[in-house]
């Protein structure tokens, strides 16, 4: 992971506002270099009072072209890095950007409160919903409190409690998933990490209210799936979703050696592969250069998707909704059956 930080304007080169220090990923270095040049020429222009419009235009065109090229051909491992970008919007950022109202609800009513999963009543595009999401934490203090988005059983149980509330009062459930996985620790195991996730899978499959899940960043294994049984599952363009992280997979199958990039590729964990497999129904496009370049644009796409999908799902009768939800997951898997060929969608 690169550590370079460049000072830059926002990528639309708006002259005011959102100027920030952006973390530069290894593969973004040529982009950062161009940004730096643009910044310097702009500085010279205003300092010397000369017009470098032509040069700036060329530089900006080059930058946009390079951005388009880079982000049009991300490798799986680069995508994972984008999904983990420190400035990628987190659950709380989305709440601020897309909800008109958010009343957070705490506690699983059994043992405790797990801030790695946050739940609340929310209003979004005119809909009353139960909004649930994993939160990684924005600053160090919050990150530690949220265990970097790695949830304990209490988080999953709180989520289920809130989903049951939503069912009771006819609120659709929307979950935003961004977690490397469920927390692997002594307390989590003692208090039934596996049971809490399993319970959610079972109960979400028969929850009598519409559910929409969106993988917004990392979709790490059972910890992600425990919030992602839904009528419609979507993922942001540069999110990843897999049974294991590239690091975990590389550690087990390649033993030693640094093969994360190969593992990421082998796991087919990006939206490009998951959509045709039917694992996600929709890929929500991100702004050019990823959500971290323009969180508002990313939030807008997300909001549009949720609003539209809510409208569609609210029209369905509950029985039809549940039947389709069952079939949606029932169809996933690829097997060869000699008596009759059976496989999931479009897996040739």
């Amino acid at each position, binding site marked *: 992971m690169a550590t370079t930080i460049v000072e830059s304007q926002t990528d639309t080169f708006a002259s005011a506002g959102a100027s920030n220090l952006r973390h530069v990923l290894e593969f973004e270095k040529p982009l950062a270099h161009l940004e730096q040049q643009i910044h310097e020429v702009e500085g010279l222009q205003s300092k010397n009072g000369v017009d470098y419009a032509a040069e700036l235009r060329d530089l900006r065109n080059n930058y946009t072209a390079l951005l388009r090229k880079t982000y049009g051909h991300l490798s799986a491992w680069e995508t994972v890095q984008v999904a983990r970008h420190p400035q990628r919007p987190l659950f709380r950022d989305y709440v601020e950007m897309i909800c008109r109202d958010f009343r957070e609800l705490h506690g699983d009513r059994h043992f405790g409160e797990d801030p790695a999963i946050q739940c609340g009543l929310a209003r979004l595009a005119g809909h009353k919903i139960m909004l649930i999401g994993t939160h990684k934490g924005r600053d160090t203090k919050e990150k530690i409190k949220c265990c970097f988005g790695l949830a304990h059983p209490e988080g999953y149980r709180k989520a289920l409690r809130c989903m049951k509330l939503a069912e009771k009062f006819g609120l659709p459930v929307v979950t935003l998933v961004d977690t490397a996985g469920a927390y692997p620790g002594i307390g989590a195991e003692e208090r039934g*990490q596996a049971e809490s996730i399993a319970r959610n899978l079972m109960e979400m499959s028969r929850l009598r209210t519409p559910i929409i899940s969106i993988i917004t960043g990392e979709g790490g294994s*059972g910890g992600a799936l425990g919030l992602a049984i839904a009528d419609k599952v979507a993922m942001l363009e540069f999110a990843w979703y897999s*049974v*294991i992280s590239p690091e975990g997979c590389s550690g087990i199958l390649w033993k030693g050696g640094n093969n994360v990039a190969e593992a990421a590729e082998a796991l087919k964990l990006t939206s490009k592969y998951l959509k045709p497999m039917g694992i996600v129904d929709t890929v929500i496009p991100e702004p050019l250069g990823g959500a971290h370049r323009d969180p508002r644009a990313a939030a807008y796409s997300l909001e549009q998707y949720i609003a539209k999908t809510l409208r569609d799902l609210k029209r369905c009768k509950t029985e039809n909704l549940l039947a389709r939800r069952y079939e949606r*997951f029932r169809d996933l898997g690829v*097997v060869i059956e000699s008596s009759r060929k059976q496989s999931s969608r479009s897996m040739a």
Partner: protein
Amino acid sequence: MSQAPNDANPNHRTHGVPEGLWMRCPECSAMLFRKAVEESLHVCPECGHHFRISAHVRISQLCDPDTFEELFQDIEPGDPIHFHDKKSYKDRLQSEQSKTGNKDAVVCGKGFIKGRPLVLAVMDPTFMMGSMGSVVGEKITRAIEQATEAKLPLLIVSCSGGARMQESTLSLMQMAKTSAALARLDDAGGLFISLLADPTTGGVTASFAMLGDFIIAEPRALIAFAGPRTIANTIKMALPDGFQRAEFLEEKGFLDFVIHRKDLRSEIARLIDFCAK
């Protein structure tokens, strides 16, 4: 049966059963006469260690003689994402298939236990650590659906290293699929007995294994979401004694009871009788 997997085991006990007349118990190190071990249901006569057993051995131990009728046996794995690490998934499958004589890591069917009819799905630890990919998910789901339709009790014997990496996100989806099928069995009032054998970990534990009306386990079975090695690496601390063993889960409230292999048939029959409507 050749070498059983022991990757999920933190103590590096070898569960392997070497060929030959004699074998060593990994737990008490006693030299055991193989035939005697087999006659005692693959349990060490000296210390009671429960050896890992293949699905077929398990079925022959559990079911009344000649009552087991295998279902869905022509379902085979594909290579949906063309997975390749140091070895291709295709080659790995082939060598596991010729090693075990099975197509994948679960055997399903109908049978009788002490005269009670039921549907069984038995995972096989000798095939790719009993890992769950599309075939395991599909066959277990069909077994659940079969039990629901035929109104028969369902027994799933879990024994697995978790979801199968080589089918990536599709393996993950098997957790969803099996759990959803169990919700329907539950809605229909069906009985599901979940028996956990050593080891039951990862995505298998975090789906059907933990959703039984009754959850029972063999003594000392490792039952975990995250494996002990992953946890030790994360927290950089030694793990408590007996952590994630069946007895530990019983104490923490996640198992109904721990049960010796020799008593399984009678206890399963007893549960079925209590739940008969």
